[in-house]
């Protein structure tokens, strides 16, 4: 488990103190009802995909996981021939139909944000 935690370092977390993050997420939750603040960053091991320009997203809670993926794909301008894998804190796969609010309740961080990492497939030689 310690291994997966290592990969779950976020620049966002390093830059901003916990208290400020907690306040920010609360504000957002109040202001945009039903939307989920998501922080998404590239996995440190990935060498193929490019970085997202924006790492903060406000996603409607009734979005399915698949729709969320398509949002990210569009941002990355990823062709259909490339794979994209998104993992949340529990390092598990999620069904396409699962709504983001469901995932949020399972995997949210203490500061109120939903953190995730994206990657393509590993290379082996």
């Amino acid at each position, binding site marked *: 488990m310690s*291994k*997966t935690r*290592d*990969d*779950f370092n976020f620049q966002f977390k390093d830059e901003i103190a916990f208290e400020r993050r907690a306040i920010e997420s609360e504000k*957002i939750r109040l202001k*945009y009802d039903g*939307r989920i*603040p998501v922080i998404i960053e590239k*996995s440190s*091991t990935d*060498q*193929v995909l490019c970085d997202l320009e*924006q790492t*903060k*997203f*406000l*996603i*409607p809670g009734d*979005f399915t*996981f*698949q*729709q969320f*993926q*398509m*949002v990210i*794909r*569009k941002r990355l301008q990823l062709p*259909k*021939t*490339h*794979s*994209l*894998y*998104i*993992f949340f804190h*529990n*390092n*598990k*796969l*999620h*069904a*396409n*139909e699962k709504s983001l609010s469901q995932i949020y309740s399972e995997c949210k961080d203490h500061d109120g944000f939903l953190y995730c*990492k994206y*990657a*393509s*497939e*590993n*290379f*082996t*030689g």
Partner: protein
Amino acid sequence: MESSFAEIVRPAGYSDFEVIRRDDLARLMGSVLALDEMQDQDENPNLYLLNHRSIVENRKSLQSSDVEDQYSVVSNGDEEIQDFHKNHTLKIDVTIKQKLFEKLTNFGYSVQKSSSQNKVQINDKSLTYLLGFTVDKQELFDKFVADMIWMTYKKDFKPLLIEKTSIQGQKVQNLTTDCNWGCVIRSGQMLVANALVQSQFFYQVPQILELQFSICSFNDGIITMDKLLEKGCQIQKEDVAIVQNLYMSFDENVTRFSDGYSLSQNFKEPEWINEVLVIVNARLGMEGINSNYHQVILKYMKFPQFIGLMGGKPKKAYYFIGQQEYKNGDPAKLIYLDPHVVQKYSKNISKNYQQEKAKYHTTNARLIKIKNLDPCLGFGYLIKNYADYKQFYELLRKYIEQDKENSLFTVFEKFDYIDDDRRYTHNTASL
């Protein structure tokens, strides 16, 4: 069958188009599968192109302009190439490093082979599965494994006339060996080759070894047999009559999940004439496989249709053929064949097959713990006929129900085409 019996199999958590792909692997496989098998085609040097990044669909696409943009494609008339084989300084430059790698690889393999650790031993304390079936005798196990095709690194094939930056960032030039970078391809080759061995069309082993895997496109992560057979037609001129016959019957039923076709739509009971090799790619965790999935993976490897698992340790690809369970409660281990040994490339495989049998078969199957695996896996299933398909489908349904949260796949009764951009664009906002 009615249209109500339409379903799509896909791993949970991916959008429609990416589900069945293991794109990096598939692209690697599709394009470079038969580095050495290709070498006899002197008349078309463009085919030697080693194409990591884009799928090689056919010869046309090889010569298309976007490929030329990526690589310096060398044509037949180019003097540089004419000189290349005489130009030894260039060649030596490459091979010193390569020779070192070769020596290291072969040394590592010989150490591994001679050690008794992790060797597959069949006894009363364990239960061994090989491609979905239980094996209870050591001799039987050895025989089954020896019948399988084993692909390894090859050396001394004609240099691949390319100059490009490889995936690890190092510059690769005029390769004569795939040592140190080809193991994913080799493990994929093993999967396809062994699927052909298991096929109900009874291919001879040398016949399979001679197939030009490189042309068949793996662009959907699914290899339909017709692609292989189509290639088979072109190579084995004398067998065309037989093979072509088969090929014709395959022609109608190309199935691509990602194109929006469903499994049963094309495979109606009375008309089922083709076999389908399904490779389902999944990444089961960011770093290392989530421990929840260990049992699930083992379960999916017990399918009677199971034909192998592409995967490996980080940076090392293996071909997994089975598993061993222990009655004393130890976690189960996977059995694999290791492509990490460099052998000399040989021409005329079918002619020399009897003498060189040891190159393509091995009994050296090894064990590995699941927790050491790399999270990127490709499950291979060979579905031979409608009964097989029904069984596969029922088993999938059963396991999905059992696993619930941890299930790797989802089955859809009806295909719902989801690519409607409008459905999400107006709903998103950035912070």
